[in-house]
Every structure is written in structure tokens, then in C-alpha cells.
């Protein structure tokens, strides 16, 4: 057994991508939804274990884990690389994907026609493979390939929604996503032209030299890549595709994408800005910090106000996601250790919190077939356990002290203070007041309105749905008190990213 582990260990970086890829192929050949679910679960469950093992090894040794494809060394071949940053995000994505698996079976069985269920799981695994690939690869073009794998599969996932509007939402996302990916690959092409390399680490070294002759091209490359990635992130004002995509996708797809897809795009942004170009080139020469801070603050406020007036819970949470993404890009824009720690911590915390909320909505849709406020009215007494979890996660979303959300806010505010932006501190706390209002409004609908006809017959969902929901709700509280797994690793990663490159 130990011998087997030892032989498998060095190959974990490739296995974490291969396993879901093979699983996806296998699932595509099945007919039964339950069998597809079983295979999908079996291929997802090892992933968080692999991610955690790799991250722990990186943190223990202080050295990144590098896996050379076909033993071709770094600048020539493609390498997969796990450092504190990618390890952290791998853990988040893999853990979320695994935790929500038990929920999938019944939710997918009711929302997806039976002949499409195995396709759905195949797409899900493919998307997961793409997301993990983006995070683990050390190669700019390989990242584009994985970006397309995850994007194409997620368009199809969204299009499988029951409502016909899901098609339009998927189409909208497809157009925007393709533009984003194209911009990114144009940037990569420019980088390759000027430096002759695609490896992230190698690029970082060669950029300094190339900068002397090809300054304008490099800046153009940076611009293309940042705008392209920000489209995938859905940073305001490039966000218009997201609310419809989240609202009309099948519940399980929304849950998965909300917790992981935008997070991975955020990872890619951090990688490009901090590891490839570096703080000195990006922040000292371009007003990228100001632009990110202003757009982030705009997202925090405009999206939150939209969330307040939204009457569909899924769309409300989608707008809330846009606002929360604003927090993360704010931390990236601040570009100091506290700010970046806040951004990274919030990638994990928001993934946990938002996944919990979308799971709860998935359970609501499973029971009453709708996530509209008028149908959810009075659900508090009919689905008390589900709604209890909504309240807990809602508190996390508000950033109540004692929940994970507070930790993010704490670091972000410290980052703003470090940057000398006291006004931003007040904007952060003021925007979380808006989240109090939209969470409060949902709570009022759930607990104080007269039960709707649909709510009258509802009851809490089966255990397979409640357990993942409560795992995440408990994590919302736990990560508010014990931040060794989140803030500590995030701070390590942020230290490397900011400290290592301002030399």
C-alpha cells in the first residue's frame, strides 16, 4: 500500500487532471443516470485528497512541486507546477467539487431529462478537468487550452437548464466567453512573439529583457490578457453574462460554477499579474491598481443594489457573486500582502459560502420547482433545516464576525489601510451593509411572508442534500475561527507573489 502511494505520489499533478478526464470519457458511455453519478463521484472524490497532499508537501518543503510532461524540462516542454498559490486554489476547487457530489444525484435526476443525465455528468467532469488544469499548468498556452475545455463544457452545462431561456443565457455566455478567451490567447501570442516562451516562470525571466525592445507589445499583451480574463471573471462592467447563466442553468451546474469557475479565472489573473509580469511591471507603470480598485468598488455597490431589488433568489445570489468578486479584485488591485491575502482568502471563503447558498436553492428547486421569492415565501417553517443553513451562509455573506466572510473583510480592510486608502475601508464596510439588506430581504420572504401554495407542501430535502449543505454551513462558521487552512496559506502565497517580485 505504502509502496503504491510512493509510486503514485510523484504523479499526483497529472493525475488530478487525468482522473476527471478519463472519468468523463467513461461516463459518456453509460446510459443510466445513477451509474453516471457513481462513476463521476468516484472520479471526483480522490481529487481533494490529491490536492491537499500536494499542497501540504509544498508547504512543508517550501519548494514548488514541478511535473515535467514526458520528462521534457521546463522551457521546452509543458510543466505542471504546484506552489502555495495554485495548491490553495486546487484545494478549493477540488473540495467544492467533491462536497457537492452527494447532492448531485437527486437534483440532476429531477432537473435533467434521463437520457441527458450521463452527458451532464460527462460535461461536469470535463469542466472540472479544465478548471483544475488551468490552475495546475505552468504554461500560458496550456492554460488557454484548459480554459476552452472548461468554458465549452460549461456553456453546454448551462444550456441543459430546463427553462428555454437557459439556451439564450448559454449563448450569451458563449459569445462573451469566447471573446474573453480570444483576447487572452492574443495576449499569449504577443508574449510568445516577443519572448519566444510560453512557460510562466520562463516568461517572468525573459520579460525583463524583452521589455527593452518590445515594451509596447508587452503592454498590449498585458492589456489583452487582463481584459480577456476579466471577462471570464465577470468583473464589472464585463459581467452581463453571469446573472442569466447562473439563474437558468441546472441547479447543480450553478452550484458548481458559482463556487469554482470564476475563482479559477481569478487565479489566472493573479498568476498573470503577479507571477508573469510582476508587481514592478504591472503596478508601477500602469494605472492597473486604480482601475481595478475603482471597478471593484463599482461592482461591490452596483451589483449589490441589483441584488437588493432582485426577486429571483438565484439571480439575487448571482448579483451577490458579482459584488463578492469585486472584493476579490479589490484585493488584487491593492497589490499588498494584506490585500492579496484578503483576495485569496475570499476565493476560498466565498466559494464555501456561495456554494452553500446555491446548494440550498438547489434543494428548494428540488422541492418546489422554483427559486422565485413569491414561491419561496414562508419556506422557513416548511424547510427549517435548509433555511437554517441559508441563514448561516447568509451571515457569512454579510461578513458577520465569527464567520468566514469576516476574515476576508478583515484582511481586505487592512490591505486598504496599508495602501493608505481609508475611504476604501469605509466603502468595503458600507457595501457589506448592502449585503445585510439583500440577505435580510430573503430572510423576511422566507420567514415572515405567508406560505405560498408551493411552499405549503414543501419539506426539508433528503439527507444526501442536507449533509453537503451542512458541511459547507459548518465550514462557514469554522473558517471564521480557525484560519490556519485559509488565511495562513493565503498569506504565504501572497508573500511569495508580492514579496518575491518587488525585489
Amino acid at each position, binding site marked *: 500500500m505504502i509502496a503504491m502511494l510512493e509510486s503514485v505520489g510523484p504523479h499526483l499533478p497529472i493525475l488530478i487532471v487525468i482522473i476527471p478526464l478519463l472519468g468523463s470519457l467513461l461516463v459518456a458511455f453509460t446510459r443510466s443516470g445513477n451509474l453516471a453519478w457513481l462513476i463521476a463521484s468516484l472520479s471526483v472524490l480522490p481529487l481533494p485528497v490529491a490536492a491537499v497532499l500536494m499542497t501540504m508537501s509544498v508547504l512543508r518543503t517550501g519548494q514548488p512541486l514541478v511535473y515535467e510532461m514526458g520528462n521534457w524540462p521546463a522551457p521546452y516542454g509543458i510543466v505542471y507546477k504546484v506552489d502555495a498559490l495554485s495548491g490553495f486554489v486546487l484545494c478549493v476547487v477540488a473540495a467544492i467539487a467533491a462536497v457537492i457530489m452527494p447532492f448531485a444525484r437527486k437534483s440532476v435526476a429531477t432537473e435533467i431529462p434521463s437520457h441527458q443525465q450521463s452527458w451532464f455528468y460527462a460535461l461536469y467532469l470535463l469542466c472540472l478537468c479544465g478548471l483544475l488544469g488551468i490552475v495546475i499548468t505552468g504554461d500560458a498556452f496550456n492554460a488557454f487550452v484548459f480554459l476552452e475545455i472548461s468554458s465549452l463544457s460549461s456553456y453546454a452545462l448551462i444550456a441543459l437548464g430546463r427553462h428555454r431561456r437557459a439556451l439564450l443565457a448559454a449563448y450569451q455566455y458563449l459569445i462573451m466567453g469566447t471573446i474573453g478567451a480570444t483576447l487572452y490567447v492574443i495576449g499569449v501570442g504577443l508574449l510568445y512573439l516577443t519572448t519566444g516562451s510560453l512557460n510562466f516562470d520562463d516568461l517572468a525571466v525573459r520579460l525583463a529583457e524583452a521589455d527593452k525592445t518590445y515594451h509596447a507589445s508587452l503592454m498590449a499583451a498585458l492589456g489583452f490578457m487582463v481584459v480577456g480574463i476579466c471577462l471570464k471573471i465577470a468583473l464589472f462592467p464585463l459581467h452581463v453574462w453571469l446573472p442569466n447563466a447562473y439563474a437558468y442553468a441546472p441547479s447543480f451546474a450553478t452550484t458548481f460554477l458559482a463556487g469554482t469557475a470564476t475563482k479559477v479565472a481569478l487565479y489566472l489573473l493573479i498568476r498573470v499579474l503577479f507571477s508573469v509580469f510582476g508587481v514592478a511591471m504591472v503596478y508601477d507603470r500602469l494605472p492597473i491598481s486604480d482601475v481595478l480598485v475603482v471597478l471593484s468598488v463599482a461592482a461591490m455597490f452596483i451589483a449589490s443594489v441589483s441584488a437588493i431589488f432582485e426577486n429571483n433568489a438565484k439571480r439575487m445570489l448571482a448579483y451577490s457573486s458579482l459584488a463578492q468578486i469585486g472584493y476579490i479584485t479589490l484585493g488584487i488591485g491593492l497589490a499588498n500582502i494584506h490585500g492579496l491575502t484578503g483576495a485569496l482568502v475570499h476565493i476560498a471563503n466565498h466559494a464555501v459560502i456561495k456554494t452553500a447558498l446555491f446548494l440550498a436553492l438547489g434543494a428548494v428547486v428540488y422541492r418546489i420547482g422554483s427559486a422565485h421569492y413569491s414561491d419561496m415565501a414562508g419556506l422557513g417553517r416548511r424547510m427549517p433545516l435548509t433555511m437554517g443553513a441559508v441563514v448561516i451562509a447568509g*451571515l457569512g455573506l*454579510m*461578513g*458577520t*464576525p*465569527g464567520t468566514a466572510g469576516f*476574515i476576508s*473583510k*478583515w484582511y481586505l*480592510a*487592512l490591505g486598504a*489601510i496599508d495602501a493608505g486608502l481609508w475611504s476604501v*475601508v*469605509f466603502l468595503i*464596510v*458600507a457595501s*457589506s*451593509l448592502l449585503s*445585510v*439588506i439583500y440577505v*435580510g430581504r430573503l430572510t*423576511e420572504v422566507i420567514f*415572515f411572508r405567508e406560505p405560498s401554495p408551493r411552499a405549503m407542501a414543501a419539506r426539508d430535502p433528503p439527507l444526501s442534500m442536507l449533509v453537503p449543505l451542512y458541511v459547507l454551513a459548518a465550514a462557514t462558521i469554522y473558517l*471564521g*475561527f*480557525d*484560519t490556519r487552512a485559509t*488565511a495562513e496559506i493565503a498569506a504565504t502565497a501572497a508573500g511569495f507573489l508580492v514579496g518575491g517580485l518587488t525585489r
Partner: protein
Amino acid sequence: MTSFTPEFLLAAALVIPWIAAATIPLAHAAPNVREAVTLLAAGALAVVTWSLYPAVLAGARPELQLAQVVPGLDVAFRVEPLGLLFALVASTLWIVNSIYSIGYMRANEEPRQTQFYVCFAVAIASAMALAFSKNLFTLFIAYEVLTLSTYPLVTHKGNAEAIKAGRVYLVLLIGTSMVLFLPAILATWVYAGTLDFTAGGILAGKIGPLALGGLLALFVFGIGKAAVMPVHFWLPAAMVAPTPVSALLHAVAVVKAGVFSILKVIVYIFGIDTLAGSSAGDWLVYVAGTTVLAASVVALRQDNLKKRLAYSTVSQLSYVVLAAAILTPISAIGAAIHIAGHAVAKITLFFAAGAIYTAAHKTEISELDGIGWRMPWTMTAFAIGSLAMIGLPPTAGFLGKWFLLQGSMQTEQWVAVAVVVASTILNASYFLPIIVRAFSTAPPTEADTAGTHHHGDDHGEAPWPMVLALSVTAAMTVLMFFAPDVPLSLAKAMIAEVKP
């Protein structure tokens, strides 16, 4: 009890209300068992906190570290005299309030009583955590949990009015705490490098007087529970809640948590000397003084009994803030004592108001003609509570004012003196008429009662648990005047700790 270490008692005080909150839902089907759990927990908690009293006076300062959230940011607890005083008030009044609640909730056939008792227990739990918090971070968590756990209580009735009040309550309290209190904590952390409550403060020499004044403003208005104008709206709005909840808000935990936090921040974060030396806190005397007077003037115009009491609370709370703002040891003692004195008196007044509502279904002062003859116990207790509000002996209300006056005269703060005098006159003019009205008309005769059945005037006292509760608190109000040893000794111990 001596066999228990102070550390154990501290842990027990923090845990007991949570145990109650977890146990109460199990007894949902058996109301008597459920209420027994509440009473048992309240009794146990009071025993535990009172057992801490001799130890703390003897110099024990038990500590407990729960978790390190971020390096330097701990969830930790430490018992000091001021916190113990607040804990004693909250835990003791929890017993009385529970007895009263049982009478009130059953007599008025309130729905969702299990939820009520659970939320109540959680509120007490957070009050304990707040009282014993070792640093601002822990206090902030407890402060927010207190707001959140009382929200379902404020909206207990579930009607449109209650929901609206709940919105005001939540947005104003969470809003001020997030937008002002949290930045204040952040600034303290950045400037002082710690959030621990430390005798003498942690900000001395760290920031200039202007920033010090600004920070104080963030704290005073950020701690919205202290209801310093203009962040007082939530308190009158919350009057829609059942009376036991009003008692919780006004006496047991919520507003007391507010003024306690302000006092604690002034004494243990700023340091009395640091503030007095920089004159950065001078403005607070005027703000608190204005609140004292303005709230009294508003109270004067209220016909709704609970609303009048609510504005009276706003006014009385600012006594505490005023006393703290005077920045002398003796006035700080006054502030601490007034927390206790106002608590027992105000809970008496609310109990009486609730008893009147339960027995006579009356809410307006203009309806109370002659009610004193029908409800002699209730209205006598109400009279005692009123005297305490005015600040007359022999009631607890006199003590706080006495120390406050002494402090302001010592430092020649004549504005404060004028405020106290003027507000005493105002208090008298909105409390005495109620008592006069209640006992003005002749006692009802048998014939009257027989003829006025349809008016609903044939009531006597409220159910006995309510009368018992309000009699006990009225007795406490008087008792504290004659035997103020407990609050006085704790307040003095606080000063001894700060100014050795």
C-alpha cells in the same frame, strides 16, 4: 461552590446559556419542562456569576482562550470587575425576566414560544461573552451575535409593523457596527497593534488628539446599542416586541451591552487619562448631554406607555455615556453603578407596562385613570421605578446621579451639572403624571365593576408570575439604594485596577 476555580466558573458562565439554548427545543412539546430548563439555566448562571464575585474582589482575574483566529486576534475571555458587574445584572435579571416571561407569554397566548426562549438564551449567552471578552474582537463577535439573536425576538409578532421595526433594528444596529464600529476596531488594531483591553488604555501616545477624537466618535456612534442620538431610532421602533423582549432590550442585555461597551472602550482602550489629557473627548459631554435632554423632551410628548419608557431609556443611557465622558474616576464609578441601577428600575417599569397590557389590554397613558386601585402591586412597583428614573432616594437611580454630579463638580463641568438638573425636572414631569393619574380617581366600587363589564375594566392584577417578578425587581431597586455594596465595590475595583 468554593471548590470550583474561577476559570471553571468563567467557562460555565459562557457555556450554560448555550446549553439552555440547545436543550429548550428538545422540550418543545412539553412547555412546563421547557420553561423549567430556562429557569434552571438562569438559576445556575446566576449562581455561577455570583460565585465569581468574591473571587474577583479578592483580585482573581480568570482567563480563557478559545481560539486564535489570526495571529494576534484571539477569541479570549477575561473577567474584570466592570464585566462582572454587567454579567451579574444580566444573569440575575434573566431569572426574574424568565418568571415574568412565563406569565406573559402564556397569558397572551403568544405563538412560537420555543423560538422565543431559545433566542432569549442565545442573547444571554452573547451578553455573557460580551461582558467577559478580553479584547475588542471578542466583544465585537458577541455584540453582533446579540443583535442577531434579538432580531427574531423583536419581530416576534410577525406582523407588518414588527417586520418594519425589525428592519430598522437590524439595519441600524448592524449598520452602525459594520460601518463605524468595525473601522474603529481596525484603526485601533493598526495604531495600537493589539485589541486587548488593558488597564490604562492602549492608545496613549499612539495617535494625535484629532485622530483620538475621531476614533472616539467612531466607537460612540458605532456602538449603536448605546442609543446615543442620532442612532437611537431602533429602540423606540423595537417597542412592537412582546414586553419581556422590551425588558431584555432595555434592562437585561442589549442597551446595557451598548453602554458597557462604550465605558469599557473609554476605560480600557483609550484610558481615562489619555482622553482627559488630550481633551479629544470633550465633545462627548455635549452629545451625551443633548441626548439626555432631547430624549426626555420627546418622552414628554408620548402617550404610548412603552414609547415613553423607550425614550426615557435613551435619555438614561446617555447618563452613563455622560458619566464616562466626564473622565474622572468618580464619574466612571457613577457610570458603572447606573448600568446596574437603571437596569433594575427600567425592568420594573417595563414589567409593569406589560402587566397592564396583559390584565387591562391598555397601552396608552391616557387610559390609565385609576388603574392603581385595580393593580396596586403593579402600580406601586411602577412608582418605585419612576422614582429611580427621576433619581430620587430611596432608589437605585439616585446613586448613579450622585456620583455623576460629584464627578462633574470636581472637574467643574457645569454643562454636565446643568444637564443632570434639567433632566431631573424633565423626568419628574413625565413620570409623576402617570402615577398621579393611576391613583387619582377613586377606587372602583362593586357597582362600577358590575356595570362596566363591556369596557373590560373588571380586571385585577396580571397573572402571579408577572406580579412576582415586578415586585422582586422593585424591591431590588430599593434594596440597591440601601445596600449598594456589590456594584460599588466592583466599580471601585475597576478604578483601582485602572489607577493603582
